[in-house]
């Protein structure tokens, strides 16, 4: 029996257990969409812009740990995914992007809707393929999935010319065996683990710093066991939120530019920093020369490139986080490496810092954005999947929603992509139809992919959008206020835009709160409504995110606003 390229593609997707695709049709993939018409068991979500498709696949992948899949046409369809690919690459998210391409004989001839998408995405994807022969198609799809989720995960693009989708191949000639170059040999980690254990035993002021690698590597329970074994406090990067319970007494909150005072102080005064699945982003380290100046550093990461790239480590363990933590624990043989007694003084010091400068804000007659998030946390009992846009909304979400569970905080960390939150929420909601999924947004960011509200309504996805509407591009405005003499150049979004009417125009539910006393009711009503809801909170226009480490300064050099409670 002969199979068409389109059939081979779906066969390969099925073998990868794909049941969900986010996509948008077009000329180069019309045969594929025709085949999709006959396919059962694969649900396709028609987005309203290809960027929405790739972010939705990304959100789906983050929420489930599976590989997200997105399907678009050639040319503009493909280029519209580029931001989403770069976004997934920066945050190491496994997605496969299938792009249509003009027929093989037209490639390189400036054909209609032709772009060299493998060339364009080469530096911002983990890998990509241009399928040149139908014989290669099935195998290439398998390889793409393998590459996307193995090692340090990432986005993989497969570009498929139209004639290959239309072509046929005898089923007997279909070979799907992966044929990839060998991976670089794994370095043995026993010696490094032994060195790490020695370092841990002599430490008295340890801090564990968890990153996205703990979540991607499914090492959350190992991290907890390990943290208990050394009685250490735990902080995390933005990407690591949820790797350690946000309500745990030894939780320090987020580290870095808008990290908590006590996380930044702890890292700046610790004698041992155990960094697990992190790459030391500049938003975390700030001035590298002053980062963790008193600490020995143990760095666990699956990607050798991350080791000594920004911060020099004293011991590096190049490994999957779960395997490394597991090895450390098994080498410790059930022994408590650091007792509660041994770190008591240190934990007491941290408690003092926590009391001195807690995360807080001042109430006023206007709605405080932090208050909205606190209320949201309260009403959802911390059980929602939260996605965010980028900017102040993202930082307040990271600070004031406490994430007790892995994969419940979905945010664009490395690339900082405004417009990520809504499509990512759609992806997460598709993955978990019965869970509450909330996109915490700003009035700027939400407009970058607002069209996806139509997708949510189309598929009855009850995503909730919480807009912290301050009429500004708030984070840029904050910098302008602090460092550019309050010259608010192009950050004021004077808009007559009525988000309630907009939501209604999309067929969603729109709600608004303009006074603090309305917040709870609007949230309650919004969360209870089993439809897509957009909630517009008119918040204090010039609220700042504190703490803030001045750009280029050390982590202890924090602007605290009025967070400080007593002299320390």
């Amino acid at each position, binding site marked *: 029996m002969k199979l068409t390229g389109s059939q081979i593609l779906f066969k390969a997707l099925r073998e990868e257990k794909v049941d969900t695709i986010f996509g948008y049709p077009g000329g180069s993939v019309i045969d594929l969409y025709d085949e999709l018409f006959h396919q059962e068991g694969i649900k396709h979500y028609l987005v309203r812009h290809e960027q929405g498709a790739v972010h939705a696949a990304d959100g789906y992948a983050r929420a489930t740990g599976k590989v997200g899949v997105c399907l678009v046409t050639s040319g503009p369809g493909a280029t519209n995914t580029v931001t989403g690919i770069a976004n997934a690459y920066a945050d190491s998210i496994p997605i496969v992007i299938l792009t249509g391409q003009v027929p093989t004989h037209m490639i390189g001839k400036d054909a209609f809707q032709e772009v060299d998408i493998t060339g364009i995405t*080469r*530096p911002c994807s983990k890998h990509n393929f241009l399928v040149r022969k139908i014989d290669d198609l099935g195998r290439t799809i398998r390889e793409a999935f393998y*590459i996307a989720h193995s090692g340090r995960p990432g986005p993989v693009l497969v570009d498929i010319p139209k004639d290959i989708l239309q072509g046929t191949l005898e089923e007997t000639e279909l070979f799907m065996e992966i044929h990839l*170059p060998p991976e670089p040999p794994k370095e043995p980690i026993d010696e490094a683990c032994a060195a790490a254990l020695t370092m841990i035993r002599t430490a008295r002021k340890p801090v564990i710093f968890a990153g996205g690698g703990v979540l991607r590597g499914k090492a959350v329970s190992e991290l907890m066991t390990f943290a208990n074994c050394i009685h250490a406090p735990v902080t995390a990067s933005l990407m690591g939120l949820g790797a350690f319970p946000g309500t745990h007494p030894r939780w320090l909150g987020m580290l870095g530019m808008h990290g908590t005072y006590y996380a930044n102080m702890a890292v700046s005064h610790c004698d041992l920093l155990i960094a697990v699945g992190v790459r030391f982003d500049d938003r975390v380290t700030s001035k590298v020369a002053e980062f963790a100046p008193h600490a020995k550093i143990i760095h666990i990461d699956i*990607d*050798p*490139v991350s080791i000594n790239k920004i911060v020099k480590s004293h011991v590096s363990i190049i490994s999957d986080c779960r395997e490394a933590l597991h090895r450390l624990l098994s080498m410790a043989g059930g022994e408590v490496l650091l007792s509660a007694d041994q770190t008591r003084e240190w934990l007491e010091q941290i408690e003092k810092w926590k009391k001195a400068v807690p995360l807080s804000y001042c109430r006023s007659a206007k709605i405080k954005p932090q208050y909205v998030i606190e209320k949201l946390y309260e009403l959802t009992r911390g059980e929602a999947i939260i996605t965010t846009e980028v900017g102040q909304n993202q930082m307040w979400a990271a600070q004031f929603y406490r994430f007790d569970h892995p994969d419940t905080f979905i945010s664009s960390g490395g690339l900082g992509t405004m417009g990520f939150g809504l499509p990512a929420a759609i992806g997460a909601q598709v993955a978990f139809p019965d869970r509450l999924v909330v996109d915490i947004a700003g009035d700027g960011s939400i407009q970058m992919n607002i069209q996806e509200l139509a997708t949510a309504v189309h598929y009855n996805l009850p995503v909730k959008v919480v807009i912290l509407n301050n009429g500004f591009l708030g984070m840029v405005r904050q910098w302008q206020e602090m460092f550019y003499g309050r010259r608010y150049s192009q950050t004021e979004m004077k808009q007559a835009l009525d988000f309630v009417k907009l939501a209604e125009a999309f067929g969603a539910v729109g709600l608004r709160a303009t006074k603090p006393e309305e917040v709870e009711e609007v949230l309650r009503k919004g969360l209870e409504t089993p439809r897509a809801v957009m909630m517009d909170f008119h918040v204090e226009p010039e609220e700042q995110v504190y703490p803030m480490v001045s750009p280029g300064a050390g982590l202890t050099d924090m602007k605290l606003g009025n967070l400080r409670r007593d002299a320390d």
Partner: protein
Amino acid sequence: MEIKKSVISILASNKPDVLARIAGTFSGRGFNIDSITANVTGNPRITRIIITTQGNQDTIIKIEKELNRLVDVHQVTDLTSLDLPLREMILIRMPMTGENHEKIMEIVDRYHGEVIETGSGYGILELTGKKEDMDNALSSLELLGIDDFVRTGSVTL
């Protein structure tokens, strides 16, 4: 840390875009390529690429790690410390008249080169050797009026 010349040997899949990936890794990550040579190995699926670059030891380790991250790269070896013989080749086209013929041949012989083509007063010389020798040969020959030349990157084994 000392900046020195380094030689990196790469075994990679013999695919059309593999050079672009490797070159892109250098440019995108802020490293420089001094010279590059590439050709297929005994195994037609694998190509060997030899790149000379400069940097301190940290930089070279970073380059190696970044290259190893590429799916199509099978093996990366920093050959610098092995002090292996490095060779490059130059082809030179220059006028070979009775007057300078002898002088040219003297230089060609000194570097164990040969004249691979002659005609209508011009000759093409082929020289192979160490980079320094090739630099010297070129500057000697330039005095005698080089028309054009082409130079490969370094190879080693």
